[in-house]
């Protein structure tokens, strides 16, 4: 077990280093931040001075080493656009993204598993067929389109929910700005959470359904039925439990995806999270923010993968056997 964790941690570190290097060298070619930072009246000399002050004249390897050295101490530099430490900016924006991501993940997991079981058990029912057809929309429509449609229907036409922003927030534990406890915060959360979770919902639902159908065909289910166990025990005690391994993998990986791809949803809904911070940073060639964001996302994926691997251990006894033997 320990050897396994250490091996996985070393792999994770390697991945992080490669991501940082790639991100860093890539961002050197996205444009020149200096133009955006100075007005049209600035002279060439002003530009040259600013470039030197930002360290943009140094060779890329030097800049990269400086970046890694600082990053290891939790210092991601100063945002060119907001003129504040990147770590502060990200810390300020992260609660918004996490609340959105976790709400939509919860929405996707609960409804996804529920509907998946339902459609598997009532395979021929009209409601199941309707849900399956509808889920095709969730898979095939692009996120921004879903967002815009939801805004037009529920915000412009019906006026039920808010079209943008996060509503009022309250400060929890002195640093976490939460919008989950205010009416306007909740009214702001509904549409983006649905937009962000819809794809995951359909994915989970279809996966649960397929796995469940698969498991229901296996011999041990037949034996269980033959022993006269009630449907409830067969379905939820035996069948569901055995469908969960791949579902946990997908949910784990999708949580990372949700946070990473919150970018589009955050842009559509003007959600003040890290995704929008990243988009604004790209437009402004705010290299410190872009690099930090990419490293953060990579870290998230690596961490989630690690957790998923460990969960396998817990859920699937076969893995423990093979590792021990």
């Amino acid at each position: 077990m320990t050897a396994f964790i250490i091996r996985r941690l070393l792999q994770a570190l390697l991945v992080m280093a490669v991501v940082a290097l790639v991100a860093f060298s890539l961002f050197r070619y996205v444009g020149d931040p200096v133009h955006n930072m100075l007005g049209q009246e600035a002279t060439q000399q002003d530009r040259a001075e600013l470039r030197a002050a930002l360290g943009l004249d140094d060779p890329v390897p030097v800049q990269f080493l400086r970046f890694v050295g600082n990053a290891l101490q939790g210092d991601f530099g100063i945002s060119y656009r907001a003129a504040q430490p990147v770590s502060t900016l990200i810390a300020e924006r992260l609660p918004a993204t996490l609340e959105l991501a976790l709400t939509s993940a919860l929405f996707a997991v609960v409804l996804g598993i529920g509907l998946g079981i339902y459609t598997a058990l009532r395979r021929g029912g009209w409601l199941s067929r309707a849900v399956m057809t509808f889920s095709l929309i969730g898979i095939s429509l692009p996120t921004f389109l879903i967002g815009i449609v939801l805004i037009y229907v529920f915000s412009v036409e019906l006026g039920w929910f808010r079209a943008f922003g996060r509503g009022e927030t309250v400060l929890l534990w002195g640093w976490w700005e939460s919008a989950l406890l205010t009416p306007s915060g909740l009214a702001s959360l509904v549409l983006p959470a649905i937009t962000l979770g819809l794809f995951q919902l359909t994915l989970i639902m279809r996966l649960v359904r397929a796995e469940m159908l698969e498991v229901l065909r296996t011999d041990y289910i037949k034996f269980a039925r033959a022993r006269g166990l009630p449907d409830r025990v067969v379905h939820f005690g035996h069948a569901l439990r055995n469908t969960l391994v791949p579902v946990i993998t997908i949910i784990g990986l999708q949580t990372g995806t949700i946070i990473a791809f919150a970018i589009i949803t955050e842009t559509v809904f003007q959600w003040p999270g890290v995704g929008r911070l990243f988009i604004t940073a790209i437009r402004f060639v705010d290299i410190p923010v872009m690099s930090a964001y990419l490293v953060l996302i990579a870290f998230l994926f690596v961490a989630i993968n690690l957790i998923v691997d460990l969960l396998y251990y817990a859920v699937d006894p076969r893995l423990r056997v093979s590792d021990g033997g």
Partner: protein
Amino acid sequence: MAKSLSGLVVTGLAACAFATAAEARTLHWASAADSLTLDPHSQNERPTHRISHQLYDTLVYRDLELALQPRLATDWYPREDDPSVWVFELREGVTFHEGQALTAEDVVFSLERAMHENSDMRGLLTSISEVRAAGDYTVEIVTDGPNPLLPNNLSNLFIMDSGWAAEHDVETPQDFASGEESYAVRNANGTGPFELVSREQDTRTEMVRNDDYWGRDQYPMEVSRQVFQPIESSATRVAALLSGEIDMILDAPVQDIARLREAEGIKVEQAPQNRTIFLGMHQGRETLRNSETDGNPFADERVRRALYHAINAEAIRRSVMRGNSQPAGIIMPPFVNGYTEALDERLPYDPEAARELLADAGYPEGFDVTLHCPNDRYINDEEICEAVTGLLGRVGIDVNLVAQPKSVHFAELQRGEYDFYMLGWGVPTLDSEYVFNYLLHTSEGNRGSWNFTGYSNERVDELIQAMGREVNTEARNGLIAEAWEIVQDDVVYLPLHHQVLSWAMREEIQHPVQSENNPYMHHVEFSD
């Protein structure tokens, strides 16, 4: 689930009702970009100035018709015995939001602060050699040589309280490049019509009316509270206006204007913006960099003229801009000093003439060239370039279009890597000299810093330098007219159109578009 959902619906509705009924004088407005900092001298950038104009006052300002008007200065004139000294008489009895009285010392302090090397405003103040108080309410600004346009440069120059600045250790502007976070970045103590309540960068800035404002009786001041929220996505911006969460948006997307006009309770106000879009051609070098053609066709005035004839600006206005632009014959907007309608007359669209001119110049089969455009800077910039590419193709010019984000476009432009490029230019001083200085003077030293055409004309350079010194308005306007004549004749740039600003707002809001894109919320009246 159903229960909590309906609960949300009710609170959502209640929130809307609250916003419209109980606080009718609150104005929620939005535009694509947020202010970068509240430090008024740190950044020379429109969205930043836009918020500063609510909180701070300037000595003079451009009103809704762009005329220069008194604000903290009641009168200004060059001293009779010495034309290189400008005298500004200050308004008496003005106080800052925290109660300090405005004196000449504050003005001297603010101007000197804006001339500090951290300040992005100092480019507008280079001619100033000294600022001094000549009394409690009189300020003298000394320039090296007479500068007839000095007051024009001060319309975005905000006045701070020197004592407040000392108290909070913000006597120098925020050093933006090194990421300095000073007290002035999130706090403000101006004399302006609104006081800051709260500021969350990129999310929300709330301000309340300054009831002690010196101009309380002079302006309507019907807005008692204003909330500014940037909304980047244009579809969401429009939706927020339609759903009633926002009362006014500054950048209505061109494709939605017709729809907004028809929406109930919404109106669209338009005016030409202080920005003209045009194409530059590198006419100075021997050969083009990104072309198979030998030599440099752009060096020949006939070729440049041919391109001009080949571009159908009216078609671009109609199909690309959906009617929301004003075709231009000159690279400055209509309200700039030196502008005449005759200068703004375009050469006719005439592909036949274009082909003849090309043949005359030795390119009967046309030539190939690369056109560089931004795709996120000007309204429909990439689409305009696509249209140009098609139009030039019809006269045999094979255009390879490269459209890139502005961060890449402008970086490469400034490295002088383009043969043929798009640029838009605004004239904050509202005087032709500004255009000449940056775009048409030979590129050397501090002049011609945005002239990437290689154009160099000795007579034009002489005229430009003379403009800066000439105090007699009539003589000066003569110099400007002569310079324009030469430059127009040489077809240095290919003008396309003046951009049009479109503000969309609820019908009861009365606030015409200000062509610098500066809403002044103390000017707003409600007509209900």
